Structure formats: C-alpha cells, structure tokens
C-alpha cells in the first residue's frame, strides 16, 4: 500500500422518489429499543427553501456510544434488540418529520494535537430533488466549553453555528431540524476540500 493509485470518485446522483420500498428496513430508526434505559428520541423536520416540510427525504445517523466509543458491530439491518451498532436510517413521514431512538453520544478521544471535539452525531441527508447526499453534524446542546472549543463550530458565525446544535426536550430527547435552503440553512460539510487532511498541497 506504499504507492496507492489515485482514482477519481464516481459521482453521486439523487436518491429519487422511489427508495421507499428499498432503503427502509424493520427497526431502521431504532438504534435502541424505544423506552430502554438511556434511550432518547432524536427528531426533527426537514424543510425546503420555501419553508415547506419535505415528505420524501431519508436520513442516516452514525454515532459513538454513550462512552464515546466508535462501535464496530454488525447487525444494523437485522436488529437483535440489544446490540448498539451506532447506525440508523429514518425516512421522513408525510409531514417531513424523522425520528430516531438512540443514545446521547459520548465525547470521543481527542485527535492528538487537536482540541477535544464536542459530542456529535454524523448525519447524511438524501432526498428527491437533492442531487447528491449532504453531510452534516448534530451536536448536543450541553457543555458550552466543549462547544466553544470545537474546531468546526468555532469556525462558524453564531447564526450558522446554531443550525448544528440540537435543542434538549423536556423528556430528555433532542430536536433538530434540517433546512436545505434559505433562512436558517443548515451547515452542510465538504470533507474533500483543501482543508481536509491529506489533500493539502
């Protein structure tokens, strides 16, 4: 692997309107059984540029466990009800609302030489009319100090930054909306630019 070939990536394309019989699967949005100890609801609405809910979007989340460990366990597609795999998928409903049952992600080990990242959940967004998937993050609202030190959040102005931080609900859950366009447009991420590790000239 000393001299790897550089290949150009295959382009993405829209998920289209007809993923509904293919991508969803049983308990896809239940990283934990609802009501089990430590479980929380993560929910929100996906909006378009006119402020209307999008009824044909599908989201994926990928996160560490509550101790901050990256889980390397299979079984996301056939849930056994006990194994936390860290991955979930939720198509939105008629009103553009998605729901996951998951855990609060714990803080992960800091990357050597970099400040500690605040706990977050990685999110991929797909929709009819969206030409390529979008990546973003949802951060827990607690621990202002960690949020302030976070490399991504601290690179954003206050309004943009707020689009990545969930609200804590009275029941302990998280609410976080996604706006594809317009006022309050969610910050979406590009990992391939010059800033990304290894690609710098």
């Amino acid at each position, binding site marked *: 692997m000393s001299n*790897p*070939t*550089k290949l*150009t*990536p*295959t*382009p*993405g*394309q*829209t*998920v289209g*309107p*007809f993923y*509904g*019989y*293919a*991508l*969803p*699967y*049983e308990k896809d949005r239940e990283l934990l059984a609802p009501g089990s100890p430590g479980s929380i609801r993560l929910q929100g609405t996906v909006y*378009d*540029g006119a402020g*209307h809910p*999008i*009824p*044909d979007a599908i989201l994926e989340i*990928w*996160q*560490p466990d509550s101790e901050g460990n*990256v889980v*390397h366990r*299979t079984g*996301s597609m056939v849930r056994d009800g006990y194994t936390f*795999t860290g991955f979930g998928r939720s198509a939105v*409903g008629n009103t553009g609302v998605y729901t996951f049952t998951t855990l609060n992600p714990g803080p*992960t080990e800091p990357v050597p030489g970099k400040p500690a*990242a605040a706990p*977050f959940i*990685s999110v*991929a967004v*797909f929709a009819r*009319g*969206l*030409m*390529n*998937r979008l*990546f973003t993050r949802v951060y827990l609202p607690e621990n202002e100090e960690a949020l302030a030190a976070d490399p*991504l959040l601290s690179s*954003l102005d206050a309004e943009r930054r707020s689009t990545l931080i969930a609200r804590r609900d009275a029941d302990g859950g998280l609410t976080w909306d996604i706006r*594809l*366009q317009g006022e309050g*447009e*969610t*910050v*979406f*991420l*590009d*990992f391939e630019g010059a*800033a*990304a590790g290894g690609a710098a000239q």
Partner: protein
Amino acid sequence: MPEDINLEIFNADPITEDVSDAAPQAGTEAAPKTYAPLDAAAESQADLSAEMKSIGEAYAEALKNGAKAEIQPRLDYAPYRSSVLRHPTKDLHHADPETIELYSPAFGHMDVHALESDLTIQHNGEPLGERILVSGRVLDGDGRPVAGQLVEIWQANSAGRYIHKRDQHPAPLDPNFTGVGRCITGADGSYSFTTIKPGAYPWKNHLNAWRPAHIHFSLFGQEFTQRIVTQMYFPGDQLFPLDPIYQSIVDQDARDRLVASYDHDLTKPEWALGYKWDIVLTGSKRTWTENEAFGTAGDDNE
C-alpha cells in the same frame, strides 16, 4: 432472505405529494390507466434541452479558461425542477472529518443473506425481461478494495415500472419482480447482482420526460465520509442528452463513470448478459495500519 422482503415496508411509504414535478392532473386518482394527458402548462423537452445546453456551454467555456473539471453533480441544477428549492445556497463548509466520521458502520452476513443479491429468485416465478449480471468492485480513491461493506440496489422492472405505490406509470407490475437487492462486498471489494434489465421510465419533470434505464446504488466505504447513493446507467442510451438528472453532472468524463460497460467475459452462455461497473469512493482521510488496509470490516472475514 428474499421471502422476508417485507411488503409492509413497500406500503409504509413516506411520499404523499405527487412524485411528479408538474401540477397534479385533476382526477388522476379515479382515472383509468391512460397515458398522461398533454399538459399545456408543462414545459417541452426543447425548452429543457436548451437550458441544459446553455449550462453545458458555460461549463465548456469555464474549462477552456482553466476551471477545474467537476466530478460531482451540481446541487443547483435548475433543469431538474425539484432541485430548485432543495439545494443549499451557501457553499458547503470545509471540515476535517473527526472521530466517528473516520469510521463506517459495520455490516456483514448477519445483516444481508447471500441470496439477496439475486433479484430474479425472490418470488415463485421468473421475472419477465432480459436477465443480466451486474458485477464490479468497490474501491476507495486510493485504489484499495472496500471489503465487507454494504451495497444496496433498487430499480424499475423490465417495463419501466417501480413497485412503489406512487409510481403511476401505466406499465405492468411484474408479480415476480420486486427490484430490490443487497450484498456485502468480498475481500477484493467485489459485488455481483443477478437481475433484469430495467426499462426506461417516464417522469413529469417536463412534457415527455423519460429517465434512461438505471439501477440505483447505495454504497458505504470504510469511512462515513465515503457514503454515496448514485445510479448506474447502460451504455449507449439515447436518452442521456435529454435527461436532467444525468446531465446534472456537467462533465462528460464524470458522467461516463456512471455508465457500465458490456462485458462478454461476464456474460454467461445460455443465461444472461454481463455488465461491469466499478465504483470509486473518495480517498481515505484516516491513517491506515497494514491490518486495516488488508482486513475487512463486518463479519465477512472467514
């Protein structure tokens, strides 16, 4: 298991709005199956083609002036009308992937049964249409095989009809074809599906809009940043120049990366034609150990 493909899920459909992008036709729900009536409000293919042509010419000009070749579809591509309100207007924010983003969910044979890669054996009878094999390898941008990862596909049947209930194209459903498959890549990144060649499919982006035949592919890499959903096309399709989704990739070399090649060595005598399509994900952002580079994710490591 194929028989476990859950028909409830087909009906648990998240889409309630019309999947067309033109105004819904009055009374379509009660109407008998007819071809879509001519809609005076709908734009013509000539209008759309002119728009696409001018975007293409502007791109060619930019290339000539030294712009970098584009390798992904444009998020803002107005000829695909549904994209108008669904693309971010701010630039994507450059970020260094951190922690969880440098890893991928693990999938394995606990998640996917080996028979799920054959879309022609999911029912009691043989589906209609041209049986094909679609095979290739999933590689990362550094040329490493993406081993032990999940590949999901979905597609229309040979008549160009999706099983999805919102698909109102008046073409027959095939009781022996669902059009959904999955597999876990091998140690060399290989995948292989047996299926039926999908038909071209009309949609309502504009009047007389037809999608080139395609298979939807969903792929995971070894890092979540490599996740993509895309579409594979068949070589020589006459609909390519007319299709705003294919054309949303403005660079011809990039478009060509979505087109499978006919491969006679893959073709099985007296059985099925073979198409080869390799998929390249983005490069790794992680420092790999030798074990990781040669090992596999998931439980595919026999």
